Every structure is written in C-alpha cells, then in structure tokens.
C-alpha cells in the first residue's frame, strides 16, 4: 500500500487527488487508458471503459502497463476483479486484425480461432465477409471494412486495422509559420495522429483545432476533404488555411448548399452531404470525386449518423477527427472509435488554460425571481411550454442590461434559443441580431465588424453555436439554450475562451429563471463545465449590481 494520489473505485472510476505531489506523474501514467470524466478543483475523476482500454491498446500500451500504473499510484489495494477485468478487456483487442493479403486483398485474420469462429457465427457479420481462406483467415469485402469494424466492436472483439491506407493524390501543402508556430500540444497532437494512422484529437474550444488540422494536412501533403458543421465554419476554415498554409484561395473549394466546388482541398458541410432527394443522398459522389489522401472531420461529436454510414466506405483513407469532447448526447462514441479511429490525443482544458493558450474564464449563473404574474403563468402552462416560458422571461432583459453595464466596452455576445426573445433583446440593447434567417453575407459583415471592434455587442441565435471565430469576444451572456445540452454549453463557453491580447479574464453568464425548469436545465448544462473545472458562481438577480461590483473591482 503506497500513499499514492490515485484511488481506484470498484465501479471503475479512478479518483486523482490533484494537490498530491505525485499527481502529475500519475496523470501521465493513466491518461493513455482512462477517460477524464471530470476535472473539478480537488479530485479529478477518470473512468476505465472498454473503449478507453482499447484506445490504449491501439496506441501500443499493454495490460501490464495499465495494471502497474494503477498499482503504483493507488493509495489502497486495487480491487482484484477490476485488474482481471482490465486484462481481459484489453486482451480482446487485436485478436482480430484487418490486414492486406498479397493474394486475397483485404482479409480478417485472427490469433485466436475461437474468436474468429464466434464472430463469423454471428448474424451481424453475415454478408460482410467472404470465403474463409484457412482456419485463421477470412476474406473481407473492401467496401465493408468500416461496417465490419463497427460490427466487431459491437460484438466486443474490436479489430486492429493494419490494412493501411491509400496514399491519395499528392498535393503539396506546407505550413507558413511567419510570426507564429504550432504550439507544443498542437504539434504533439499532429504527431500522435500521424503516428496512429487515423483517429481523434480532443482539444478544448479555442485551443486551435483548425491548426491541428492544417498540421495534419501538411504532414499528409495530399488532397484533403474537410467536413464541417456549417457554411460559416467552412469559410473560416478556408480563411485559416489560406493564412496558415501555402494553399491559395484557388486550391480550396467549398462544397455547400450554395457552391459546389471540388478542388484539391475541399471543405464540405455535413448538411450538404446529408441532403436527400427521393431518399437518395445526392452528393455522395463528392466522396469519390478525387483520390482523397486525408479526410478531416470537424466537431466529431456532432457528426450526424448518415455521415457515419458514409464514413464506413472511407476506411482506406486517413481520417482525422477534431472535437472538444468525445461525449455525444446520442451515445455513439463507439462508432467514432470504430469508424474514425481511436482517440489519439487529448488535453484537459485547465491544463491548456494554465499554459496560457486559452483565456481563463469565470462562469456566473444569475438567478432571476419571476414576477408573481409570470410565476402564475408558468405554474399553469402546458409542460411543453414551460421551458420556453421560463427561458424567455421578460425580466431577463433587465438582467442582461445590468451585466452589460458592468462590462462597458468589452466585446459581448448575447446568445439565446428563442427568436422572439432575441428580437426583443436586440431591440432592448440596440444591438445587431444574427439568426438562421440572416444571409451569409450579412453574417460575415457583422462578424467582421465585431472583430474589428466596430460594434461591441451582438445578439446571436443558436446558428452561432458552432465554429464561429470571434477572437475578441470576452463576455458571453446566454439567456436560453437547447434544454439541457452540455454540448452547447461547452461550445458557447468556447466563444469567449480565445486568449485575450491583454490576458483578461473572460466572463460567461447564464441567466436563469429561479424555481423553473430553466434552472434545472441550466444545472444539467453546467455540469460538463463544472466537471472541466469551471465552477459556477451563483448570484441572485436582486443582488446583481452589488455582486458584480464585488466581482469586478475595476
């Protein structure tokens, strides 16, 4: 029994005491195989999951390393059953391997005949594999490489994909580091990805995921397909690539609802790929339009299910996933693992913040007591109406006003869900409003104006949730959200976390109506950030002025 910083729980969570002298060491030892679940101030919680253990196997770690890491740093004896379970789970990875056979092409081979027999007997693998060449080998239809991997992981026998990748069409890409360089963690992420072949890089919002993508493209130096969430984000990728790499505007194509350009580097939106006409995906040819050497998925955690299915056909191409969190509200983490690849790199938010690459942020929840009339209206409202009613409580306008007054001259975003509420707010604050109806051109104009400091305030709907790059936003106020989405909360916080030139602390406010579902949803949303170490302060709207004055002595 050591006096280590780690406590291993029988439910497979690992508690890491951060203030312990050995904490950093222990964190490094367990990071390859344990998923960081939450990282509040004193004790970080990691979890051992099959996916995490297989990730570790994919990265070349073995069960012995895992077991010894647990035993070395554990304060109490590690439950024996857990160690056995770890060893057994890890032993399941790699019993099956996808490899290239000189004669038969893609084959699935095994080191354990019983396992191969077991998976071949399953109904799910029927049709995905061809003839059995010998006891240990079976032919795989190249087009089913992804589906097979997905099925195998569901069966609990994840295949190690050693079949390699097509080289893809060569296209020279290099970074142009004039006045900037990749940050150490970005470089590390690119290296880990490239070394692993395919996989996912997890970095906090604002930590420069686009640059990791650019770095990977430079490594690959091939034609590249980039899949992003929406058009605005596509434009930003394009701008960033032009700025940071040798690529010119002409080499980068946009494939979206409005434009259909196919160039050596093509940026496509999820939406256009999932557009269907008469039940048929009309833009699938894009995937085969060129001999892509690399496919980049931005915001993997939002990847829609149809794209997963398409991705199953892209298994011979290198795939890079970028995301701030592997948490998916739909629980499809295993598909990310099997179809895009294992997690290749991640760094906790607070670590990167500590290194000064993202701005420190202070989160505040302001609780507003509804007026008696509003409370009565809320009390008798239909259940499905309650959230809207509470979230767009009229009293919130005044609270937003007060907050904005406390941050004079700072670049401020007001984010909300309900268009009516946002219109009202925009009018009340005399600020511009961006919603789904705003044209792309108008959006770009407003964003540019905001960026240059021409305007200080913007009211945005959820269209601005993803991948809008507003470098100087330092205050965000959210007045309503998509129910309890932790996803969205993280994204919104990400809006204010780009490092400020003067090193200022960013502020993130959530205004909620007390004693309503609004408050409950807010609690759920905040959990993710609280678990990332961003503890919320709670202020009563009535004490707001005094509270803000105390918080912001300036």
């Amino acid at each position, binding site marked *: 029994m050591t006096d280590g910083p780690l*406590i291993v729980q029988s439910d497979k*969570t690992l508690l890491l*005491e951060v203030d312990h002298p050995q904490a950093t060491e222990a964190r490094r030892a367990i990071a390859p195989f344990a998923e960081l679940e*939450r990282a*509040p101030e004193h004790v970080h919680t990691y979890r051992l999951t099959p996916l995490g253990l297989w990730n570790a196997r994919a990265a070349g770690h073995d069960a012995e390393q895992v077991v010894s890491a647990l035993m070395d740093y554990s304060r109490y*004896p590690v*439950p*024996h059953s857990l160690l056995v379970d770890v060893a057994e789970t890890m032993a399941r990875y790699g019993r099956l391997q996808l490899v290239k056979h000189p004669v038969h092409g893609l084959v699935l081979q095994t080191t354990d005949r019983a396992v191969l027999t077991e998976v071949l007997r399953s109904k799910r693998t029927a049709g995905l594999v061809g003839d059995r060449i010998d006891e240990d080998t079976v032919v795989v239809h190249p087009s089913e490489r992804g589906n097979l991997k997905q099925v195998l992981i569901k069966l609990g026998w994840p295949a190690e994909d050693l079949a390699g990748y097509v080289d893809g069409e060569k296209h020279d890409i290099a970074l142009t580091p004039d006045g900037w360089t990749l940050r150490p963690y970005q470089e590390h992420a690119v290296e880990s990805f490239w070394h692993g072949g395919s996989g996912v890089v997890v970095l906090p919002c604002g930590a420069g995921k686009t640059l990791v993508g650019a770095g990977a493209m430079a490594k690959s130096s091939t034609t590249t397909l980039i899949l992003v969430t929406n058009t605005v984000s596509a434009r930003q990728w394009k701008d960033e690539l032009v700025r940071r790499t040798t690529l010119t505007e002409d080499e980068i194509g946009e494939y979206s609802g409005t434009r259909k350009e196919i160039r050596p580097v093509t940026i496509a939106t999820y939406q256009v790929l999932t557009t269907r006409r008469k039940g048929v995906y009309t833009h699938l040819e894009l995937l085969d339009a060129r001999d892509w050497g690399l496919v980049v998925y931005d915001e993997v955690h939002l990847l829609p299910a149809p794209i997963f299915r398409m991705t199953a056909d892209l298994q011979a191409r290198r795939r890079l996933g970028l995301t701030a969190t592997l948490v998916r509200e739909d629980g499809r983490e295993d598909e990310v693992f099997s179809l895009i690849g294992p997690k290749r790199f991640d760094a906790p938010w607070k670590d990167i913040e500590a290194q000064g690459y993202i701005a420190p942020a202070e989160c505040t929840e302001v609780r507003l007591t509804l007026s008696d009339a509003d409370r009565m209206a809320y009390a008798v409202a239909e259940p499905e109406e309650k959230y809207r009613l509470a979230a767009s409580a009229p009293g919130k306008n005044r609270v937003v006003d007060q907050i904005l007054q406390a941050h004079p001259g700072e670049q401020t975003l007001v984010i909300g869900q309900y268009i009516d509420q946002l219109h009202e707010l925009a009018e009340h604050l005399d600020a511009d409003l961006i919603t789904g109806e705003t044209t792309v051109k108008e959006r770009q104009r407003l964003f540019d104006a905001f960026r240059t400091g021409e305007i200080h305030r913007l009211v945005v709907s959820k269209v601005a949730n993803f991948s809008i790059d507003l470098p100087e936003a330092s205050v965000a106020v959210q007045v309503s959200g998509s129910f309890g989405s932790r996803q969205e909360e993280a994204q919104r916080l990400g809006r204010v976390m780009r490092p400020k030139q003067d090193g200022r602390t960013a502020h993130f406010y959530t205004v909620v109506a007390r004693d309503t579902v609004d408050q409950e949803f807010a609690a759920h949303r905040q*959990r993710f950030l*609280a678990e990332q170490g961003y503890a919320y302060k709670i202020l009563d709207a009535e004490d707001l002025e005094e509270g803000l004055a105390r918080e912001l002595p300036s």
Partner: protein
Amino acid sequence: MAEHRSASTFSEALRTRDDDALVALLRARPDLVNPSPSTLRSLAARATGTASTERALADCDRLGLQVLESLVALATLGRPTTPDDVVAALSPADDVDPAALRRSVLVTLADLDARALVWSTPDGFRAAPGVAPLLGLYPAGLGPAAPHPADDLAALLEKARSDGGRGRAVLDALAWGPPVGVAPHEPRAVAAVDRLVADGLLLAPDAGHVVLPGEVGLALRSGRTHRDVRPGPPLPADGRSPAHATVDAEAAQQALEMVRLVTDLLRLWDDEPPTVLRTGGLAVRDLRRLALHLDTDDATAAAAAELALAAELVADDGEVPASFAPTTLADSWLAQDDDARWARLAHAWSASPRAAWLAATRDEQGSVRSALSPDHAVGWAVRLRRTVLDAVGASPVALGPADVRAVLAWEAPRNVPPGDAVDGVLAGARLLGVVALGALSTPGATLLDGDPGGAPDPAALARTAVALDAVLPAPVDDLLVQGDLTGIVPGRPGRDLAELLDAVAEVESRGAALTVRFTPASVERAMAGGLSAEDVLGRIDRHARGPLPQALEYLVRDVARRHGRVRVGAALSYVRVDDPAVVASLLADPALRALGLVGLAPTVVAANIPAARLHEALAAAGVTAVLEGPDGRAVSTARERRRAAPPSGRRGRGRAGGPSTGPPSGRRVDEDARARRVVAELRARDDLARAADHPGATGSTGAGAGPDLDLGPHRAGAAHASGARPGTTPPADTLALLREAIEERRLVDLSTVDGHGTPVIRTVRPLRLDGGRLRAVDPARDAELTVAVHRIASVVPRDD
C-alpha cells in the same frame, strides 16, 4: 489403538477393542449410537451394515478408499495384507515423495481401523465385512481370481509380450481396469485373444467378453493396485499463494460493501416492507426493487436479503398480509460499528441452514426461485459451508471454484457435494469477504474457531469483529467538496461523516473512497430529516478541507428557502369561519380545549375529532354551526350517521422475534459423554451374555430388511414376547453372523420358516446379503438359493 489383537472374526475384533477405542468408534460414526445398540454383536452388525458402511465410506478420502480397495483386491487374490504390503501396492504419483506417501498410508490405516472399516488379523489388515460389496464388482479395477491360476505367470506374460503386438495390446488395454473387454471380431485379434485364453491370461466367461484375471492384472501392474496415488488433495499446478495483506484488503472491501448492502436493505424495508409471498418468499418484483435501491445485481441483492434473514435482522412479521420487516435486533445492529455488524452477519451466515445461493436462480422448470423462501432451508448447508471453508483454509495456495471442487472430490469421492452448491457457498463467502482471491481472509478464519451451527457467543463475535477491524483501512474524516457539487472522502468515511453524507448527499461511486453529489433533492431530504441549512453547512464545513464552494452554500440556502413551502398534516375535521374574531374566541375557549383545535389560518381551524362530534361539541359550547360535505355544501344533521373512524396512523408493525429458521439451541448434548455411556452399557450387557450360556442362536422373525431397520432390543423383544424362545438372537445379530460367514466363506445352519410356518433347517454357504435377501449355496445339493432375510429364524455358524 493399532496394537494388533488377534481375533478370528470382525465382531470378535470389535469386542477386543478397549473402551477408549470403542468410544472413538462411536464418536467417528455417530450413526452407530442412534439408537443405542443392545449388544456388541448388534453394534458389529450395524457397523457392517450397508447403510452405516456406506456412510462411513462417504467420509473416506481418496487415499482411504484406495487403501480399502487395495486391501480387498489383495485379499481376494490371496496376497498378504500387512501395512507394508499395502504401501508397496500403492504407486506414488510422480511429484509425490514415497516416504510421505508411506506415512500417510500408515496414518490412513490407523484411521480406518479406528472407524472399524478395517480390522487387524495376524496376517495383516482386512477390510471389514460389508465394505467389499460397496467397492464395486472389480475393486481397484482388478478382475476376479482365476479358477486355475497359472503357475508360471511371469513366463507366460513374457511370451505374450513377445508374441507380436496384438496380445500385448489387449493385455495393456485391460491392465489398469476395467478388466472386462468386448471380444474382438478381427481374425488376427481373435487369434491373439484365443492364445491368451489358452494360456490362462484371459478368461472368456461368454462369447462376447473377455476378462483379465486379478493375478494377471496385478502382475501386469508390477504388483501395484493403484498408480498416481497422492497423500493429499490435488492442488492447482500453477497455484500461487496471494499475500495475506492483499487477501485481507480485498476481503475488507467486500465486508464493508456487504454491511452497507444490509444496512441499506434495512432502511428500505423499514419504509416499505415487502410482502411475503404465499409460498413464503420474496417476490421477484420486490427483489428487483431492492437490487435497484442497493445499486447492485439481483444475485447480490438476494444474498444481502438472505444474510439479513439469517442474522434475524428481518423476519416475517406474521401480520395479515405478512411482510418482511426489520426486527428489534435490527435496531441494535444498526447502532453497532461496521466491524461488529459484519461479525454478526458472518456468524449468521456460517450457522445458517439455508442454501442461500439458490435465491434468484432458476430451477429445472426455468422459474426463478424466490429469495427468503422457506424451501431453501436445507440442513446440510452448515456442514457444506464448513467443508468448503476448511478446504480453502487448509490449502497453501489460492483455490478457484474448480480447484475447491477438485479438493472436495478428493476428500470424499463417494460423497462429492453438488458443484453448484460448492460454487454457491464460495460465491457467498466472497461476497461477504470471508474468502477473497481464493484464500481464507483473516477475519473469515475466525469463523472456523467455533462449532458450526452453534449459536455464536459474544466472545466469538468480538474476536471476529476485532479481526475485521484490524484489516479495515483507517477511517478518514476529511471531505473534499468541489465546485461541481461533488464531495470525495479519500478513504473509508468515519462514522459521523458517513452518517452526514448519508443524510445530505447521493452516493455516486463507492470503493476505497466515496464520491457523493449534493443535489437539491438530497439536501431537501436532509431538511425533511430535521436539519437546518446552518446544520448542514456547519457539519459539512467541519469535515471539509478548505472553504466550501459558493455553489454548495447557495444550493443549501436555496433549498432551505423553498423547504416547507407546501405543508401537509392530518386533521379529522375543520371549522371555517368568516370572521377571524370568532376563530380567536374558539381557540381561546377553555371548554373546547379537549377538541384539539389548531388554528391553520385566520379563518380556518383544524380539529382532531370527527366532524359530527365537533359539531355537537360546538353546539354544546353555544356555537351553532352547519355541517358541510366534501363539496362545501351544507349537510343535514338528521342524515348524518355515525361511522367508525379509519385507523389513524400507520399500522403498527409487529417486530417479529427470531425466525423459525435459526438453529435450535440448547439441545446440544455432550456427544462424548453419551458415547461413553453407551460403551459402558454394551460392555456390561456383553459380559452378562458371556457369563450366561450362549450356545446356538435361535431365530427371531420380523427384522427389517437390513441393519438400518434394526428396531432395537425393546421393540424386537415386545414383538416376540409371545413366541420368544430361550437363546433367541436379535435380528441384528443374525445379520452380523451371516455377514461374517460370507466374509469367512463359512457354512452355517440356517433355519427358515416357510410359507406355512414350518421351520426348515439347511446347511448353506452364504454368498451375498443384499436388499433384504440372502443368496447362499447349498453344498449338499450344489444349488443356489435366495432367502428373504425376514424369513430367517436363526443362524448357527458351523465349526468346520
């Protein structure tokens, strides 16, 4: 006790044992004393009877059986059977030290002698009569003695070996038994077999089979009756012995977990006692609910429920409808510390006659066996538990379930406990922390100190508790409270802290440490339990390292603010008044004080008596009121009928006493003293009988089919009071005489009674006594006859 007495028969040998040896025998085979045998001869009869011998063999380990088989096989072939001969006949396994085996064989012989399974003759040991028939047709896999044994066996075998491959292959195939083979059809093989038969190396009892005679088999085995003999149970080859500290740490974890499960179970069932099924068990639905509440699987929840029942912490409350409710013992148990609580559970488990592992499993029909069902009470559970724990405790290496089964199969090959029962006991032991990592934990070992099945005495409980306490991690009183409203105790929480967290937080993860989350609901629960915001924060703060996060303080105060906004109470009737002044006067009126009036609002008063009586009481006090119905409309008093008030409050829960499943206590008899008394009686009676003239035994009828139906002297005597003749031997003696005659191949005069009641006396050689029938050969007529034992009037051995 191994001093060699020379006796010609088994019963004689039994008689010549000294008193201590007899006492030891009765202690080792308690079935011989129940009921007390009347004479030493009937003791011998009972000891050699099928039932008792079977029982004694069931207690023999593999080595004991191998020794017995060896004795029987050697004797059948006319070989000497001294201890050295037996040692020589047993070939040790490769990894066994021959000297160690020799020591074990000698000890085993002495032990078999003590249990009267063998007896010593001048030529060595002999298996007791009654043993050989139970060892199967071919003891040690050796065939019968050849009718005409070949003199030059060695030469013949040499010849057969050199005679091509076939004859040799046949001999090798039959050498280590079974000695019977199917005769071949292939011509060359037939020729080889024929040659072997001609040489007397094989017997061909019929056209289809061949038999290897015992002598030949023994020669082929180089004089050995058994090979690969080991002095002790087989242990896993790659077995490792886990470090004590590791075992104990794992056990401590389990122990705490089990205590927690039972504690939570009691709390749940205190609030909502589950109904007892008509068949006496717990409904599957209630088990699921329990499992859900305990955050565990059905099997573990069932184990916890069974433990609570065994420890008498819950019981059928005996009400209608009956439910399982915590008993009065539960309260004292809950007041104890973890170690003492565990000691109670562990002792109750060890002494419980219930096959608890059956709960929540499926029976042959596929239906789930309910937990707490009275059907699971099986007497042998206590013994099996002890056997399993002994096996695990005695092993120098860790044993998995399969290993334990192998050890038990070695220790009693004729009485192997069912595999799933062994697994069930082990699973229960692991859940409880008695066994961990395949080894007995230090606290678990304390359970082996006492007598299994006995009521645990306070000293034993205390020893177990102390043993557990020594291996539990030291309690921690620190709480790390974090901004995401979780709290972490980096170790086992001390009692005060555990109680606090239990009251104010939800547990998120358990194990070496405890993670809790503070939620509005959990804080609300604490306030409902009577804590104020200041209490909650103050108590958390006392344990917290560092300042409390603002979010937690806010949460607690916010909940306190909302707490108690809606209130519920009980009242039987109310008074509504328009004028607050009237209310004030009602509350102030001393004449109305007995009505239990409570002012709820300026114009509403609640009362604790039924509305009609309140109405009358108010009228008597001069306040005229109108009775109103549930809809607020006035009700005419004329139609008002008096109705019984529903029983108020919760039905009082009968705290049932001890369940009927507990072991009977106070019925324990000093077995040793009893055995001594029986021996003294036997001796006295035997001396008396010897003093009197005791020539031939004359018959008695009416005995049962075997010695196990021995009715004892009194009833037998009563049955024959009318027709008793002098010198009549009790039926048990008849059987003993017959068995000895079979063993010695002696002739006896058998007098039987035929269907007409006519006595017939024949001189016969008894062959076999089986199933209430005697098979014997009448040498005069050279015919076999079968006689029902109950028709045998008397048996007189012939001296020839």
